[in-house]
């Protein structure tokens, strides 16, 4: 299989994180496609987080309620008139309501809308749940899928250098996932992710690096140190932009990455000393 064919199949696949056997075989051999594939999986995962425009429905409802008393108000756009009515024109067509009545009516409407929303948000009906189930099966957990794949690659790696490289991918994916969750996830989740990140770097990457043969260190550890330095910078940036509760785990990740970078550089320097 060539690179173009592999990419075409991945683009057409329903879940690019689980490539078909023939594509997976190609990815094993081709580093460029493997990088491209990782990018594709990352994009696929983030698509679900694109924000949706806010609805104007509530404003429209209030307008309709205020305007619709007696059914006298008509939407000017219905007549094909492009411009909105002037204040004077609108005032002449609206039924006249005293200001305080209008405001009380608006407040009551908002109260009803909010009450209804709170009620619906807290008690989804069984029928609603059934509809969701029928629409589509839930998407697989991206972190579990990625970790499962990383774990298998690490299992199949033939040397410590390859395993450390795979661990580097583990760490990158975990950082990317944590960063994507910074805005929406609850602090407990972020703290757990930061704790796992710490384990992978300090108990995995750095400890493994110490047992690496001195002559291999520069080749294997320099790219890992570079990755960690990038993560530190990125995590710091996200910590500055995040809410206080979410910022702390990102700072922990940045601190772990900083320490890991230093330790890996120290090991590389050790190799250089006679």
């Amino acid at each position: 299989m060539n690179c173009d064919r592999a990419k075409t199949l991945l683009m057409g696949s329903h879940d690019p994180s689980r490539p078909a056997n023939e594509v997976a075989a190609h990815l094993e051999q081709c580093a460029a496609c493997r990088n491209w594939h990782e990018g594709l999986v990352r994009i696929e995962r983030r698509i679900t987080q694109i924000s949706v425009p806010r609805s104007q429905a509530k404003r429209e409802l209030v307008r309709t309620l205020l305007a619709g008393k007696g059914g006298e108000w008509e939407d000017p756009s219905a007549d094909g008139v492009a411009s909105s009515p002037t204040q004077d024109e609108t005032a002449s067509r609206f039924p006249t309501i005293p200001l305080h009545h209008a405001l009380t009516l608006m407040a009551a409407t908002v109260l009803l809308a909010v009450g209804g929303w709170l009620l619906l948000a807290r008690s989804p009906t069984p029928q609603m749940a059934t509809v969701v189930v029928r629409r589509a099966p839930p998407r697989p957990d991206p972190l579990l899928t990625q970790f499962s794949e990383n774990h298998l690659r690490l299992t199949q790696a033939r040397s410590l250098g390859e395993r450390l490289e795979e661990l580097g991918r583990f760490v990158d994916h975990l950082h990317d996932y944590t960063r994507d969750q910074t805005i929406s996830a609850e602090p407990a989740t972020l703290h757990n992710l930061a704790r796992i990140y710490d384990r992978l770097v300090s108990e995995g990457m750095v400890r493994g690096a110490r047992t690496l043969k001195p002559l291999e260190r520069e080749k294997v550890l320099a790219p890992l140190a570079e990755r960690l330095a990038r993560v530190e910078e990125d995590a710091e940036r996200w910590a500055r932009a995040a809410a206080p509760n979410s910022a702390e785990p990102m700072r922990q990740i940045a601190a772990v990455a900083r320490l890991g970078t230093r330790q890996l550089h120290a090991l590389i320097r050790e190799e250089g000393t006679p």
Partner: protein
Amino acid sequence: MTRRLFLTLFFVALAVSTHTAHSQTPIQDAEAARFHRNLALIEALVESSLKQLNTEEPLARAEACVEAARPFLLEVQAAVEQRDPARTAELGRHLQDMLERGVVANLRAARQQIPRGSAEEPRLRQVIKRAITVSETFSAALRDLPVSEDAAEIRPVLEEILHKQPALEKALRGTLAVAIQ
């Protein structure tokens, strides 16, 4: 009148802020619940990877994979009990991959390295037997799962997993047969 209006608006604002401060959207709630449900599995994969990092021994790697497979099996069994085909399929795929690419591959390599009658052979046999138990329990759980019409899309995935199981178990038993010789 103005006072009544302000009071109404105050309570509306209070209700909205209380709700938004203490709750998330249903999607965020579902994401958080999923993360906590999968946390033990994620930790198992991390633990297994850390164990394998510094070992060149295929048997130790196979052992680490079997250890990691156990929590997946427990979660698959729980998903079957809860009649959740989507979760069964998702975790079942991970479990099967782990047994196939992690356990069988390393056991074959270990079998090449461990001579018959050596001190390591009983350990090899033990790991193989544990892997077979995990795989057979997994197959039995899959066969127990009723798939309702609501989850018709999942059925082919589950069937594919179940279809692959005999070959996987045959491969595992194959390593045992050679190890016993």
